[in-house]
């Protein structure tokens, strides 16, 4: 549920975001800012997708970057094979991420807790190595795309500003769909599974199929983010699937506020801005980012979005989650 203050915060953030291309014209470095804001939004979509299963479903997937890679490679491979048509590329990206999410989910969800964390991590690493070994498609170095997806008769994505607004529209779509989803009957089931799966089964829910469906939905949303990412940079490489990327997406969710849909958007912006600032001061910025993460987890679990309300969310002590 959105409080009034939260609604105002979300609306003003999105309006501000929509004005980035205009504002950038005054600040200078227009191309940089537009691309940077687009990248923030794409990672925001990925983080929202992870939050659906992590924050709402309690499934600690440490392999979400895999779907980023699947979406990106679907676009990249088709493009390399001469199919630049987005009406083909994007559905293929969606289908591929759905299938792979279904396979990974079906195996990982047979287990729980720490096994689930390790298995999702292992499968994403498997896809990473698969990407590295695809020498025909750039292997370790990745490959350059000739151009962005073509949507003949609909829209021309080659301009950065156009692409920016398309990504913004998809982000808003993802937020709206996510909002409907978590408050729907399906969303209640997913949240019930996070809260107390044993009880869910006792009152009659076959929980596995609902969790799997949530995993697939989340994977598809992240796959779309991957397809967008390939389009943004016109470049695809295994590094998008590396496990540190999965870690980063997870950090975005936590930093912004897990279990709130808009939190991950703030988290994506927060982490990427932080990286940008730190890396402009020192090449060893990760030595600073690491301890920041540790402190964040230990002391500020409610995240950026939680700060907007000022008061702590009503939550009973000691009764949350079970790993």
């Amino acid at each position: 549920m959105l409080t009034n203050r939260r609604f105002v915060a979300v609306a003003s953030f999105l309006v501000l975001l929509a004005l980035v291309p205009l504002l950038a014209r005054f600040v200078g470095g227009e191309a940089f800012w537009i691309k940077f804001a687009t990248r923030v939004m794409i990672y925001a979509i990925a983080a929202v997708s992870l939050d659906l299963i992590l924050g709402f479903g309690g499934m600690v997937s440490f392999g979400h970057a895999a779907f980023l890679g699947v979406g990106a490679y679907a676009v990249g491979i088709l493009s390399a094979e001469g199919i630049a048509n987005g009406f083909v590329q994007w559905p293929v990206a969606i289908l591929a991420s759905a299938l792979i999410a279904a396979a990974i989910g079906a195996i990982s969800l047979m287990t729980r807790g720490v096994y689930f964390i390790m298995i999702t991590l292992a499968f994403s690493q498997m896809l990473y190595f698969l990407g590295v070994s695809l020498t025909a498609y750039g292997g370790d170095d990745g490959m350059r795309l000739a151009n962005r997806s073509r949507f003949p008769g609909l829209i021309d994505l080659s301009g950065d500003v156009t692409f920016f607004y398309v990504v913004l529209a998809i982000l808003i779509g993802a937020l709206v769909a996510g909002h409907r989803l978590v408050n729907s009957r399906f969303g209640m089931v997913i949240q019930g599974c996070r809260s107390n799966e044993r009880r869910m089964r006792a009152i009659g829910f076959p929980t596995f199929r609902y969790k799997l469906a949530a995993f697939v939905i989340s994977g598809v949303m992240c796959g779309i983010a991957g397809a967008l990412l390939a389009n943004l940079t016109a470049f695809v490489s295994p590094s998008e699937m590396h496990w540190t990327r999965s870690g980063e997406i997870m950090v975005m969710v936590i930093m912004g506020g897990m279990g709130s849909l808009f939190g991950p958007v703030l988290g994506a912006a927060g982490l990427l801005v932080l990286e940008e600032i730190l890396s402009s001061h020192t090449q060893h910025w990760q030595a600073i980012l690491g301890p920041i993460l540790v402190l964040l987890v230990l002391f500020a679990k409610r995240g950026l979005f939680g700060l907007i309300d000022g008061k702590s969310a009503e939550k009973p002590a000691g009764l949350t989650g079970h790993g």
Partner: protein
Amino acid sequence: MAEPLLAVESLVKRFGGLVATDHLSLAVEPAELHAVIGPNGAGKTTLIAEIIGELGVDEGRIRFDGHDITHRPTPVRSALGLARSFQVTSLFPDMSALDNVALAVQAHSGHSFRFWRDARADASLRDPAHDVLAQVGLGPRADVLAGNLAHGEQRQLEIAMALATKPKLLLLDEPMAGMGTEESAQLVTLLKSLKRRFTILLIEHDMDAVFQLADRITVLVYGRAIATGTPDAIRANADVRQAYLGEEEE
């Protein structure tokens, strides 16, 4: 006589060398309140887990409402009309009392692959949930997070969630556990109001409550049913006095 609603037939469950359930048979007739008592370690909780399907059995059969459910998974048993409350309170602590019950209603109103409509604005879930909450006396507490309810209220909510699935058989696993005298008395009143409307299998330590409420009582010792009968018959049974009531002073 008609078939019992629940028939447990010669059930056996071993944990390594320990026989937790030893050729246990038990029949619950429609509309009765059947209590199971027994000293600690008699296998009461194991029995509940077997009936609800959280624990597989080694031998024997469980029949429920004309179905052989011995090997059916828990959600299927729930769909057939078995509902349980938990001995250790097992709620959705981060959801409101109403959400807790509404989820139980939702579990029995078709599949939940419905992604768009706001479930919290769905009268077909909220109205029955409100009704059940009122039945157990939690009406005014509907919007409180389950984790923030008092212990006695959480026990009431436990029962409300079981009721909301419109069960044919209600399995109550020590509903009085950890309750004070006053709370227990309230709960006995609640259970009396449910008697006859639901078939109930009650597992309970509180002897006063059991002898007040039960139509029939089965006594469990070391995984065996050593006696079944009316409260008066059980009181008079020599085996029971020796095996169980004699050592009541724990």
